[in-house]
């Protein structure tokens, strides 16, 4: 009995996560089409809604080409690392309050570990291995450059990311993600929800920018800059292995949105819901819905940013990371500490 509950939760999360990944790709193609005054995929199924299914089936039937010059073992290992890391970050994200269902209290997160935030940082920094190894193992100049750029970029921005989180930690006083969310359930001055975005505006900006760089999304997609590097680290990948990289990129986006929501946008908190007089079950369900809506909005923000902002040059990227983001993140810590003490 004790093992069934986590298994059900894990299965549900994986299922929801992967469906969201598939439809995120579809949404991105549609939104980008609308932004560029095109139509986008609209042939497969009603409004093109079955396009992701068609894409996945196509990927399964594509030949897998591994160049003779490549290191075959690492070449196959890299996409696996990328996707597993991208998926497993979700294990510590709380997507709802404790819910009372079938006569028992169920906590709506897979593992409520007391070092949740450290686990999250550790795994998201593992993601760099997938990209770097794929770049090196392909034995292709473009891939190598993409992998190198990506490793330098990700470690540079990881610092700002870690430092931005410190501000949240100082306020919440815990590494447990659930406690951080609960802490955001208060109200500032009785009307403004105490989300960390209002308490830590500077930290929020540095964190979001750094996470954009971590997920290799535009304007930070130097590792796969198409005009100069063809495809970057996945130039030599085809078929399902390419598909895994593709899934990993979008799974990372979802994780990023969930983390941003949890740390800065109040997680599953639904402001003022206790004043409406819903039953406890309805409140719990609405909180899960609130979490979903917040994550969806952040995802939409990711997509819109990608299609409206041009790519950085590499020296601009490194300048921003080291000379702007890092001092700003440290400044945020000092400001936060000052305000807590005063």
């Amino acid at each position, binding site marked *: 009995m004790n093992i069934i509950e*986590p298994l059900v939760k*894990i*299965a549900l999360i*994986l299922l929801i996560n992967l469906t969201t990944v598939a439809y995120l790709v579809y949404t991105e193609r549609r939104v980008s089409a609308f932004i560029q005054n095109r139509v986008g995929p609209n042939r497969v199924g009603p409004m093109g809604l079955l396009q992701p299914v068609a894409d996945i089936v196509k990927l*399964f*039937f*594509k*030949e*897998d*080409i*591994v*160049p*003779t*010059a*490549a290191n075959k073992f690492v070449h196959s290992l890299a*996409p*696996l690392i990328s*996707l*597993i890391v991208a998926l*497993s970050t*979700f294990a*510590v994200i709380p997507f709802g309050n404790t819910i009372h269902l079938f006569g028992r209290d169920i906590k709506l997160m897979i*593992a409520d*570990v007391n070092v949740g935030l*450290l686990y999250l940082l550790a795994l998201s920094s593992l993601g760099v291995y997938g990209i770097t190894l794929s770049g090196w193992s392909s034995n*292709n100049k473009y*891939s*190598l450059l993409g992998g190198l750029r990506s*490793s*330098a970029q990700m*470690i*540079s921005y*990881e*610092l700002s990311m870690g*430092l931005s989180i*410190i501000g949240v*930690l*100082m306020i919440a*006083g*815990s*590494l447990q993600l659930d406690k951080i969310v609960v802490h955001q359930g208060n109200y500032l001055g009785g009307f403004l929800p105490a989300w960390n975005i209002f308490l830590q505006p500077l930290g929020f900006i540095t964190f979001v920018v750094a996470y954009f760089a971590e997920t290799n999304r535009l304007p930070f997609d130097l590792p796969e800059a198409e005009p100069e590097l*063809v495809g970057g680290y996945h*130039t*030599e990948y085809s*078929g*399902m292995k390419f*598909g*895994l990289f593709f899934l990993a990129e979008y799974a990372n986006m979802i994780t990023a949105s969930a983390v941003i929501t949890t740390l800065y946008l109040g997680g599953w908190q639904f402001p003022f819901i206790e004043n409406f007089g819903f039953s406890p079950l309805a409140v719990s369900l609405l909180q899960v819905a609130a979490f979903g809506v917040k994550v969806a909005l952040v995802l939409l923000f990711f997509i819109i940013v990608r299609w409206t902002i041009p790519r950085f*040059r590499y*020296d601009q990227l*490194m*300048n921003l990371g*080291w*000379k702007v983001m890092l001092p700003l993140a*440290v400044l945020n810590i*000092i400001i936060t*500490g*000052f305000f*807590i*003490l005063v």
Partner: protein
Amino acid sequence: MLTDFGRILIFLLIGVIFTAGGLIASWLLRPRRPYPEKLSTYECGEEPVGGSWVRLNVRFYVVALIFLIFDVEVVVLFPWAVVFKNSGMLAFLEMAVFLAILAVGFVYVWVKGDLDWDKPSPRLPVYVKGKGIISEEMERTEEKEYVSV
């Protein structure tokens, strides 16, 4: 009794099974028609020139080294931040001193120019009244013409 990290392990295992399952399924389904040209390294349709496992720009190593130092700093900051609320002014000042020492190192690296990356310095053509658009290339060809005449 399953601990929280046990659940994470199960999650990881299911993730591995799922991803490996995808690869195995596609391995069963996909066609295999390789030939040497198809398996050659991609280089814009040309024969690849030399290998790709070459020496890299030293800046990447420098960045990695600076990262190591600052990452240790972040790790030190984590436990400090968790207990910060209860430890008051002294903890704040201690951390300020720690950050100041690191800042000195950071400023040193910055001034030394290790954070500067090569910038492109494009020479853009300029418009001069009466002469039209002048670019460096055109100036050079003009010079040549004078010499030849």
